[in-house]
């Protein structure tokens, strides 16, 4: 059963087709259908990426015509020596470490719990997913009210029980944690829904059989639910990792990058658009692109290997 669900779909052996006319039409058709997407992808993803790659070797300015002067690897060496770049990279990594594990584990726990709820299941599903539909600006506004030092909601509540609240968004010891907390509340619903869907895919008979064999609820969860959610966990973790590494909106809106929270993407934005240094910004995004590629590649390799082990 396990093997069946995780085995890659087998491609049917290619049979030589004798009818020629439908065959050529059949060859062209997929490409035609792909063409609109292909054109857009080329125009808005591959093209700009290639352009960005070229720009990263020039001192291109936003407000000067043309590419500017070629500087070789100058942008990259300056970047590697820049404390600002490294600290922004550190901030993004910190945010990822604060958010990814919690968002994966907590959404799994909540999904398993909600899946067990008979009545009121819908209420919980709705409640956990609701924040996810809010735009980042709304989330930032709500939480900036709550996190306002002294007079904000959280400070008032903590004050009532005698706790002196820190300045959540102003104190570097707290700002990133506060933003990670907000992100947790905001985006948990997405992972939660993925897990819930996967849970509902697990056949009931397995639990019945296990129950007959004398497995208790905890054993059922540990031996059936978690192993069968393995693929979803791999997917959720990969998506979450990429989403966390791409963090920008909520930080930009809530602290503008102050208090040691500026993520690497805001560094790129600030350098390229605010400081007009498009060449340097391109170099930074190229470096970061490579880094994300590396992380996703490693993750893919790791999960592939585990897949194979499961099949064996």
């Amino acid at each position: 059963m396990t093997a069946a669900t995780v085995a890659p779909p087998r491609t049917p052996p290619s049979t030589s087709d004798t009818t020629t006319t439908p065959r050529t039409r059949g060859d062209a058709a997929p490409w035609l259908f792909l063409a609109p997407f292909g054109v857009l992808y080329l125009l808005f993803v591959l093209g700009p990426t290639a352009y960005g790659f070229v720009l990263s070797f020039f001192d291109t300015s936003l407000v000067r015509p043309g590419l500017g002067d070629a500087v070789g690897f100058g942008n990259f060496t300056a970047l590697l020596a820049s404390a600002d770049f490294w600290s922004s990279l550190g901030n993004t990594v910190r945010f990822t470490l604060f958010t990814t594990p919690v968002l994966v584990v907590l959404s799994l726990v909540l999904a398993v719990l909600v899946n067990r709820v008979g009545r009121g299941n819908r209420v919980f599903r709705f409640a956990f997913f609701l924040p996810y539909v809010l735009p980042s600006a709304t989330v930032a506004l709500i939480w900036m009210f709550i996190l306002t030092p002294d007079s904000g909601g959280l400070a008032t509540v903590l004050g009532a029980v005698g706790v002196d609240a820190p300045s959540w968004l102003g104190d570097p010891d707290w700002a990133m944690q506060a933003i990670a907390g907000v992100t947790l509340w905001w985006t948990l619903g997405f992972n939660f829904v993925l897990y819930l869907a996967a849970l509902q895919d697990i056949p009931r008979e397995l639990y019945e059989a296990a129950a007959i064999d004398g497995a208790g609820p905890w054993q059922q969860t540990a031996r059936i639910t978690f192993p069968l959610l393995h693929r979803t966990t791999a997917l959720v973790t990969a998506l979450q990792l990429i989403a966390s590494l791409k963090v920008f909106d909520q930080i930009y809106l809530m602290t503008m990058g102050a208090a040691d929270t500026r993520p690497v993407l805001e560094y790129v934005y600030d350098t390229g658009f605010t400081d007009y240094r498009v060449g340097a910004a391109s170099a930074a995004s190229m470096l970061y692109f490579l880094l994300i590629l590396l992380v996703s590649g490693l993750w893919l390799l790791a999960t592939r290997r585990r897949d194979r082990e499961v099949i064996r």
Partner: protein
Amino acid sequence: MTLNRRQALKAMALGGTALATAACGSPLASGLVATPLEPEKVAFWNLWSGGDGARAQQIFERYRTARGAGSLEATTLAWGSPYYTKLSLSIVGGRPPDVAVCHLSRLSNFARAGLLTELTPAMLRGAGIDGAQFDTSVWRSGLVDGRAYGLPVDIGALVLYYNTEICGRAGLLDASGRLKPITGEATFRAALAATREAGARWGLVSPVIADPSSNWRIFDTVYTQMGGQDVLGDNGTRVTMDDRTAAESLRWLRELTTAGLSPDTATDVTSVSLFAAGQSAFLVHGAWQTPTIVDSKVPFSLAPVPQLFERPAVFADSHALVFPRTDSGDGPGRALGFAKFFLENTDVWAQGGSLPVYRPVLEGSWFRDYEPVASTAPTKDIAIYDPPAWYSGAGSTMQTSVGAQVALARQGLASPEDAVRAIRDALTGYAATPSPL
């Protein structure tokens, strides 16, 4: 089935063409073919999202009353670097507004980047505008290599707001109900302590959290008053900050909190609301917060930021009206007419707290009698602007990176020396970067 689908596709294609034809003159179509949307209309971008925005709206209404309801499209964008980023991109992208607000501290960078239309003497004459109509020093600081690129509107400085009721109880007012002059930091701290004894929760509030620009303004004022020279020299290619004085000024600011005179938790908004709620005797903030405080009905008045140390100085900046470069090469034409109208109506603007610099208004009897704003007029002569650099100016990288460290020092999260070291490191990095202008 196939036929049906073909028909459907054909119908859709026809419909699309029809839509496109019908859309001529719509924003979409004019955006696509780059024709002016409505040649009669002046598009104006500003960053007046604070209390001063309400006064700007009144001037816009006057203009619409005079020139027709559709004569002006005013857009207010978020203050600071988001605004300047959008403005630059709109000009580079060839879709700028006809006229926009630009801080004087940003103007020379915009002009040097070739983003602005030069206002030639002929153009100004044609619109009935003359440099002599403006406060001389402000007009001069708006010139770039002797050429005019913008029309200054005001001087917006840090000012001292005081609660007249609390200060009265603390014995800080003179017979006419105005704040007795405060000179020297000891006197100032004694005054703050007196207001606390008179029942105020805080002596002084000012923004500390999530507001790097305010932190920069306050730091720059105290630092310069202590005798510190410009933090940047040679157009920003050298860091000329006097580290000892800088650390000294941060230590002094921090002591206001440790002495219990001033909170280190206020933001831009809460500092104003604490003062407006009568919880603090003084507020140091930009003059542009005046309308918000007027609306709160708290009894207050304005005074210049007192001279606390050896040298009188206070941070200031000015708004100017600028005319983005256009590819067509047309002059600003109608937009210049709007600018003239705005300047003539800066009496309304002055109610927003900033000092007008258009002489007919500044020297008019109405303004001279307009308390409390007129009482901050001496600020004009001790105003300090940002040092020139490609990364300085309102909401700039310099303000943000310095302000962030100032905020840490004021909260006691970094020692003054560490904060100054971090400021120097950040600025040194920028000073070494070739200007992209």
